[in-house]
């Protein structure tokens, strides 16, 4: 079965640079979530989209922005990167707005040096 695809798997950036993470949800899934997981931490919700509209916002810094495109893929843009942004970034998708489980991608490991 198709899964959530995230790219790239690994990304190394320097401080103050910009990074773009991509997420391709499972086909027919219309809801996308972004989570950030720091070392030894539980995943923290950043932002979500439903039908290409931003629906919910968590602890996402103003330096970050995201959007969902017409084909339902989503991109997380991160500017003015800081060392503390180093983390595993997960994208998850599901169909609809009910209680169906989230299906997670393999994550993008971002390292800021």
């Amino acid at each position, binding site marked *: 079965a198709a899964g959530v695809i995230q790219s790239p798997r690994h990304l190394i950036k320097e401080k103050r640079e910009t990074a773009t993470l991509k997420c391709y949800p499972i086909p027919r899934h219309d*809801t996308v*979530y972004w989570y950030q997981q720091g070392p030894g*931490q*539980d*995943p923290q*919700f950043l932002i*979500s989209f*439903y039908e290409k509209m931003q*629906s*919910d916002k*968590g602890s996402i810094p103003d330096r970050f922005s995201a959007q969902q495109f017409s084909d339902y893929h989503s991109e997380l843009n991160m500017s003015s990167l800081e060392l503390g942004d180093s983390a*595993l970034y*997960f994208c*998850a998708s599901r169909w609809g*707005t*009910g*209680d169906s*489980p*989230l*299906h*997670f991608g*393999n*994550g993008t*490991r971002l390292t800021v040096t």
Partner: protein
Amino acid sequence: AQTVTQSQPEMSVQEAETVTLSCTYDTSESNYYLFWYKQPPSRQMILVIRQEAYKQQNATENRFSVNFQKAAKSFSLKISDSQLGDTAMYFCAFPDRGSTLGRLYFGRGTQLTVWP
């Protein structure tokens, strides 16, 4: 606001034995879902099992089962016949029904190690 508590940061079990991971939560909702996710060393987040609060029957998925005590707001995960591949971080997760899309709140996780 909902909270999810996993009180066991680490646990270990011998292969083929049974282990139970605990999770408690707090909510004012009466109808909701609960999830257990595992995160092996590969860091992928994998759904293990889910429980619907309105169902009295505990969910079961092969060697994984839950003990859901709604009144006590407890949602423990039992792993039977533990295998080396079960070594992972296990997260209990609860949807935030106060948010538009029911984003998940995760517990802090329990690191399970299965040893030979």
